[in-house]
């Protein structure tokens, strides 16, 4: 034991830092969060921009495009696929990839000269069947996945902590009722419960958050309840009673922090499960709806091409993205568990 006083959090961080897997996980997660936040800056298009002429292109494809001002949405110019173009007078004459000639007024293009309104952007991961940039959709899909994880775990934490605390603190019939609820929810495989709640709530963004959130609080409730059971009889909790503290203050100020470690570990694992659940839902057509990008949906779109034996990237890239996110979360979660509870680090 060192003589310097270190808080448990500092000690845990020290142990976490020595864990290579956990550090790799953290770095990947940070990069993903950064990418999701900076999505508009690092992607060449909007996730819903369709260039039908450039549909189903392989990774690394470059296509010539003109940007035309979009009166309804000045931030996202519409994109026109062109073979070549020439400026004559106040018009630009271009041929589309099929060779059809067209004319456009220069003033309708987004930008002052051809360096601004013409480009040959790189479709890093190719395009999907609507000619949407796969890389762009992958990055925006990451936004969706991370948001789903964050919000659904927020909901799960809220329900789990509240129910777990009151069950563990008050015991008796309250505990019986909460545990009955836990056992009922426990009776369904998580993914199936998420599907069931999605049918009940309907399709969509928010419905998906809620469906996943209310399916994944049981583990948290059980852990919090267990911790409360264990520490309720300790002297310092008795002391809070002697001091006349209210139940709420004792529960949330003095007991809950002791359960924080395992709860954080569970929430990390739940985050990974939420990402899987969201993509599973969108894969079967529930969950996030088109044209909003989602990894599960992209995988489903690509699935049709697998049987044809072409364009594997359409399935592989979103699958790899999801696997990376989930593995990073698992590595981080494992490291966190070992760091917070050195006793179990053998496992």
């Amino acid at each position, binding site marked *: 034991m060192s003589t310097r006083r270190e808080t448990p959090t500092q000690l845990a961080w020290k142990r976490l830092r020595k864990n290579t897997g956990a550090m790799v996980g953290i770095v990947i997660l940070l990069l993903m969060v950064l990418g999701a936040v900076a999505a508009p800056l690092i992607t060449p298009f909007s996730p819903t921009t369709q260039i039908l002429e450039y549909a189903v292109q392989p990774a690394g494809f470059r296509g010539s495009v003109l940007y035309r001002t979009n009166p309804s949405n000045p931030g996202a110019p519409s994109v026109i696929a062109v073979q070549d173009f020439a400026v004559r007078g106040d018009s630009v004459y271009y041929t589309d990839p099929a060779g059809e000639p067209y004319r456009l007024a220069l003033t309708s293009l987004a930008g002052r000269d051809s360096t601004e309104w013409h480009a040959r952007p790189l479709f890093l991961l190719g395009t999907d069947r609507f000619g949407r940039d796969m890389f762009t959709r992958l990055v925006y899909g990451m936004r969706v996945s991370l948001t789903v994880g964050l919000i659904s775990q927020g909901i799960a934490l809220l329900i789990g902590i509240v129910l777990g605390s009151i069950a563990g603190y008050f015991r008796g019939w309250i505990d019986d009722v909460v545990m*009955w609820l836990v056992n009922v929810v426990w*009776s369904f495989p998580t993914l199936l419960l998420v*599907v069931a709640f999605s049918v009940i709530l309907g399709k969509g963004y928010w419905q998906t958050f809620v469906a996943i959130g209310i399916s994944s609080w049981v583990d948290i409730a059980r852990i919090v309840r267990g911790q409360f059971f264990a520490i309720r009889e300790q002297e310092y909790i008795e002391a809070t009673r002697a001091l006349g503290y209210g139940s709420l203050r004792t529960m949330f100020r003095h007991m809950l922090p002791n359960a924080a470690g395992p709860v954080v570990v569970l929430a990390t694992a739940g985050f990974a499960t939420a990402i899987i659940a969201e993509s599973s839902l969108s894969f079967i057509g529930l969950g996030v709806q088109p044209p909003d990008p989602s990894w599960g949906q992209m*995988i489903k779109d690509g699935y049709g091409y*697998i*049987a044809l034996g072409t364009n594997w990237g359409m399935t592989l890239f979103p699958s790899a993205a999801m696997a990376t996110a989930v593995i990073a979360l*698992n590595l981080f979660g494992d490291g966190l568990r070992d760091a917070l509870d050195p006793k179990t680090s053998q496992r």
Partner: protein
Amino acid sequence: MSTSNPAPASRWIHVGVTLLRAVVAPRKLAYTLLVLLGVVMVTFFIRPPGDPARVLLGQRADSTSVAALRQKLGLDQPVPIQMLRYVQNLGRGDLGRSIATDRPVLDTILERLPATALLAVSSMILATLFGVLLGVIAAWKANSWIDTVTMSTSLFGISLPAFVVGLLMVLVFGVALEWFPNSGYIDRGLPYLVLPMITLAIRPLSIIARMTRSSMLDVLGQDYIRTARAKGLSYVAVFMKHALRNALNPVVTTVSAWFAGLLAGTYFIEYIFNWPGIGLAAFNAIEKLDYPMIQGTVLLTAVVFVATNTVADALYAVLDPKVRIQS
């Protein structure tokens, strides 16, 4: 460890009797029924939001046909009455009629149960055999390259959702290598079972392997192992006889608990491989919002889940004297 070592046959009879007693103990049984009541209440509410009749027929449908469907589905009754009817019907073994096919849901489920059971059981056997084997090898050669490879591969197995593993299987072994057919049922030949079976087994296999390894390492660190070694017994004998037997106790629970989880996994696997089981029926029902069918399949899965978990808990108590004494 018990000092007396009963003959194998009588030991298993003892296990069976204790197990039966634990499962049908009145208090335990009553509680299980209470939980099942809650499960039924949840499945009752699985229906499209708003007015299901309107959702099913579409916005253009005229109000008379909507009212007719509402009456046919019993939706014109107050919710408590509907729920009571639902429970009563369940008591008679009536799971309602499918909206899409107008067949009794139970008939469809019974018809498709063998396909799902075949898939689940064969996957579980595969997962258990290879999971325990890999876990034992990893523990035997702990911290060697083979341990590292097994454990990092299993991390992938745990992290990838079933449908992604399924697609990768189709891609590699179905399309690229053309070793196995990538869609269809076993009635067309045994090869049709291979890809869905392996896909479904990957996750439990990974978990069982990790579980076996950590449980083995736990046991190998115990004093009685050192005692056995000190007596002069060979490492192999100690490993196989003393360590493995005890290490497998938690694994047995994992296996039985995972069997239940597999049933949910079959949903996605059946969808991807076009395997005509309950999961495929459920997904087709989800697409059509055929909610009596969804309710039936979800209820069945939950009941099997509860039943296997009850057995798993009891089995754990029987196998581990420490748990038995505590409870």
